């Protein structure tokens, strides 16, 4: 393989890795607090993309459009927790997991009614042109996707590691009884985690829409990618989610560049299945803290 092709694979992998990392972080935030895998996470990405497109087409500038999309998606996240997960808080994790699947179909139905079947797109942010680098092409949107992911990663590390509110959120998942006797309102913390994860998902949706376009049904495939990224790296550690996301993105890009036909689509998940068989809790997971 010549250098430009290798570089192109690396750039595409970095772009995909950033997207999958950002997706996985949504799972990490909710799991860190509630130990629940929210299978509706991809729907917040879809909502973020669709809402941003809608507001932008109404003539609202891009940044306020994204902000509004994040706020509305955050409210949808709050609704998912308050009206679906919270009433079922005493039920098993499996029941709660299935409820998030139910939410997927509900939100897809509403999106279909509002936006129809069509794929929608946004122009690349601020008309950033494609960049040629040593024979490889970098799409104008790619730096935005990677940059937004970096900001999310740094922000989450700061929030969970350096703020008392972040520590209280982590305490809920670590020792719920201990957290409660310290006065931490576990239900409220869970609500915040859903709002945060939905907001993060919406940012991802807005960022990737110029690259991938968006439609009412795009959420589920993104959920699968996010779950893979989170579980391969280790859903209970942000470092694990980053590793899983980047590894998944790089493998997908490499497979697409080297394997003919549609076979590349099965290589990355195949390798990931092998990883999970060898380390069921993920590469960097902290033992005993993944249920």
């Amino acid at each position, binding site marked *: 393989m010549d250098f430009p092709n290798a570089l192109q694979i690396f750039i595409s992998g970095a772009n995909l890795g950033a997207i999958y990392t950002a997706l996985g972080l949504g799972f990490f935030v909710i799991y860190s607090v509630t130990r629940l895998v929210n299978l509706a996470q991809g729907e917040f990405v879809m909502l973020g993309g669709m809402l941003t497109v809608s507001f932008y087409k109404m003539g609202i500038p891009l940044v306020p459009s994204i902000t509004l999309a994040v706020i509305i998606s955050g409210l949808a996240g709050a609704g998912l927790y308050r009206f679906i997960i919270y009433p079922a808080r005493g039920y098993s994790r499996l029941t709660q997991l299935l409820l998030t699947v139910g939410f997927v179909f509900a939100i897809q139905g509403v999106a279909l009614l509002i936006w129809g079947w069509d794929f929608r797109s946004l122009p690349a942010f601020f008309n950033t042109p494609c960049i040629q680098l040593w024979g490889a092409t970098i799409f104008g949107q790619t730096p935005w996707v990677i940059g937004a992911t970096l900001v999310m990663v740094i922000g989450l590390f700061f929030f969970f590691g350096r*703020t008392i509110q972040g520590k209280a959120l982590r305490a809920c998942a670590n020792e719920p009884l201990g957290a409660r006797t*310290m006065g931490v309102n576990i239900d*409220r913390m869970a609500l915040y985690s859903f709002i945060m994860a939905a907001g993060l998902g919406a940012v991802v949706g807005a960022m990737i829409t110029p690259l991938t376009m968006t439609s009412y049904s795009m959420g589920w495939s993104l959920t699968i990618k996010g779950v893979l990224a989170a579980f391969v790296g280790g859903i209970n550690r942000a470092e694990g989610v980053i590793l899983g996301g980047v590894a998944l993105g790089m493998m997908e890009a490499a497979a697409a560049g080297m394997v003919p036909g549609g076979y590349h689509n099965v290589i990355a998940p195949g390798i990931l299945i092998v990883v999970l068989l060898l380390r069921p809790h993920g590469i960097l997971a902290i033992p005993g803290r993944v249920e």
Partner: protein
Amino acid sequence: MKTDSAVVKDAVTSKKVASDKLLLKVEDVSMRFGVLAVLKGVSFSVPKGNILVIIGPNGAGKSTLLKLISGLLSLQEGEIWFKQHRLSKIPPHRISSLGITQLFQDVQLFSSMSVIENVMVGCHLRTRAGFLSAGLKLPQAQADEQRILKRAMSKLSLVGLEQKAWDNPAGLSWGQQKLVGLARALATGSDLLLLDEPYSGLLADEIDKLNQLILQLQRQGMTILIVEHLTDVLMGIGNQVIVLDYGEKIAEGTPDEIQRNKRVIDAYLGSG
């Protein structure tokens, strides 16, 4: 002005303690798990600044009683009053903000955090900054973090573990982990400290150190409720003792009275 021992005597015997001197009042509390009656009509009062020791054999209902007071279990029958608040009417997470905190038998430290972070979570109720200001690192949130760090460090210093502040609790001895749990509980600023079998697994010198700390906290005005089965350790520090047996309160009094109580000797002390 009444002395502490006079207040205790009133609480224990004549029940004439003025309501403003009472911190906790447990009224006719019963609890069932299925067909098993774990507590049967238990009542007692704890004046402010007291150390109440609840003893009894395994299965006597001691830990259940603590969990009812801290709100980890919901009351089925009876009522618990804390500073004129009916605890049955208060959501569990708010009970801590009223001033009740608990140290669990198995401590339940947050293993993904350092020692100091554990204690900082105990200060959670004292934060003024909300989620947004914390996330955006606004000046108020930064000042809040610094204040909480200082407070957490002072509690660690109180239990003698400031040198271990940045260690992971998993690397500490069991006795040190208990002290971290105690520091975390103290960081809440509560008036009532519930200790569930705090001496279990401790070495003799660690038991002495814990006793000294408990007495120091009492001198600072804290009310402490200890559940334990090591009676010889407790008779030295408790100024009010309750004995439970099969969910029933069979005796209440000062340590001396309890040691002379024939029913207690027959049911519990004599059996050891």
